[in-house]
């Protein structure tokens, strides 16, 4: 248990750094991340360019800082979209039961039958490969998972006696839903949202790596890796740093997510 709180702390630190860097990127970067310099192409890390420069002589550190902003922004919007839509659908489905539930869940399960980023790929073909296309595509692709988790939580909460107690007190269904069910769903929603933030950042970078995400020259960690790929033999740093940023971010989210799950998952509670 002690290890988990320690790990959670590491996770929290990593995520705080990420957020701080993302905010920093709004105001300041060491160099203009878009500025080309043909004299400083593929320069190795040095005092001047801490993380080196890319094939157009742009400062890698500056581009990574701006990339962090893109990751956080896309991740946050995607999660918000999926969390709000999924919670709404899950609540309705879990509370209505009967055929409404059956229809919603049939559609939900069918959408969950698109594995990995496949649905997002399909949706990107519709929305177009850009920042907002990605947010909509991923947001819609993640909604079914959130809906399923919320519905599951609602169904198990409905069996709890305090929901029946609320009915006995004469409270309306809507009141019971808002006062008793929704607040008790927040724990699983939080845990899943944390994981989703990680999925979104990973998927965004994967899509950008494929060339289907945020189009260059705007920097994201994914498209930086893709652009640097032909040059990694001469310029290892182009393949190293953006990937390391993604990995550290995901590590932070995973550690934080584990700690949250331990703290919030009732099954783990009382199991000291």
């Amino acid at each position: 248990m002690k290890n988990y709180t320690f790990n959670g702390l590491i996770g929290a630190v990593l995520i705080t750094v990420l957020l701080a860097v993302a905010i920093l990127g709004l105001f300041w970067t060491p160099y203009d991340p878009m500025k080309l310099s043909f004299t400083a192409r593929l320069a190795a890390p040095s005092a001047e360019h801490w993380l080196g420069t890319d094939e157009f002589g742009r400062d890698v550190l500056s581009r990574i800082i701006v990339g962090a902003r893109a990751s956080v922004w896309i991740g946050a919007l995607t999660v918000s979209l999926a969390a709000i839509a999924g919670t709404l659908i899950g609540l309705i489905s879990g509370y209505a039961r009967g055929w409404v539930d059956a229809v919603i869940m049939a559609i939900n399960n069918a959408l969950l039958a698109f594995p990995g980023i496949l649905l997002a790929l399909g949706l990107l073909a519709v929305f177009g490969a850009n920042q907002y296309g990605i947010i909509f595509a991923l947001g819609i692709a993640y909604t079914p998972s959130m809906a399923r988790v919320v519905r599951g939580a609602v169904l198990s909460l409905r069996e709890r006696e305090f929901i029946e107690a609320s009915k006995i007190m004469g409270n309306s269904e809507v009141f019971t839903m808002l006062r008793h069910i929704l607040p008790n769903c927040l724990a699983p929603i939080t845990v899943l949202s944390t994981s989703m933030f990680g999925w979104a950042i990973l998927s965004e970078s994967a899509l950008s790596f494929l060339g289907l995400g945020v189009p260059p020259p705007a920097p994201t960690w994914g498209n930086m890796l893709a652009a640097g790929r032909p040059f990694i033999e001469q310029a290892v740093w182009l393949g190293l740093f953006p990937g390391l940023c993604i990995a550290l971010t995901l590590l932070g989210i995973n550690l934080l997510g584990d700690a949250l799950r331990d703290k919030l998952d009732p099954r783990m509670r009382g199991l000291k």
Partner: protein
Amino acid sequence: MLRFILNRLFMALPTVLIVSITVFALIRFIPGDPAALMLGDMAQPEQIAEKRSELGLDKSMPEQFLIWGGNVLTGDFGLSIVSGEPVRELVVSHFAVSAQIVSVAVLLASLIAVPAGVIAAWRQNSLTDLALVGTATILLSIPTFWLGLLLLLFFGLKLGWLPVLGYVSIGDNLVGGLLYLVLPVMTLVIHEMGVLIRMARASTLEVLRLDYITHARAKGLSESAVLWKHAFKNAFGPTWTMIGLILGNLLGGIAVIETVFTIPGLGRLMVDSIFQRDYPVIQGCLLFVALSYVLVNLIVDLLYPLFDPRVVAE
């Protein structure tokens, strides 16, 4: 038992239907007129209209869906706009390449990770456990495309042990073909091990605190008998489901790995088709992968009673 199997089969039907509708609808939502797109910028309105009726686009949506669905059922996925080849053959030949990599990777990852996870759970909170869980969490956090790049850089470029670009089918050249598969498979194995170790550990921990484990110990069974005869089989169910999910997820996300290692698989086919707006091929890939995923999960479900006889009675 027969009821269980039939029940599961019928439960998959609505999913298959809705998946097909979704795939059909997705492509129809894409802005722009496919007919105009196929004929290029110079087309005359009459030509477009002719093409539209040729493609059946002038019919109502439900009619179009039924025609499309009927064609799919008879194995006709249409023709690629770009190359003119039948989509079915394109999809099947590319799928074979991806499936090879994915299935070998999942098999290897399971063989290593599941025992590791069980041992971590058995030695909960020991150094072994902490090391295994720590490693697993790190592995899980490394994006596959970056890991692939690093492995390529190290084994391909620095050491020169393995080929860097291109692909040879094992059918054409067994040894050469295998060499091309080593890096992509290794990448996937390393990543999925992270997921599976944690899953196997968690489900084993869940089982280890149940009474029948204590009862098995109280019978005088040795620790290894308790672990492998009593705990393992019961703990494997959730992991088994997870293996099915991973298999499907890899099929859906294989595009990045195929891009890193320039492998002509299904994922690459789909991404290229998106770039080229080759809608019949996109449609074929989406449908094929989603339905394979449904099939994999169905098989996983049908085999589940081997690990937990309770699901049949349910």
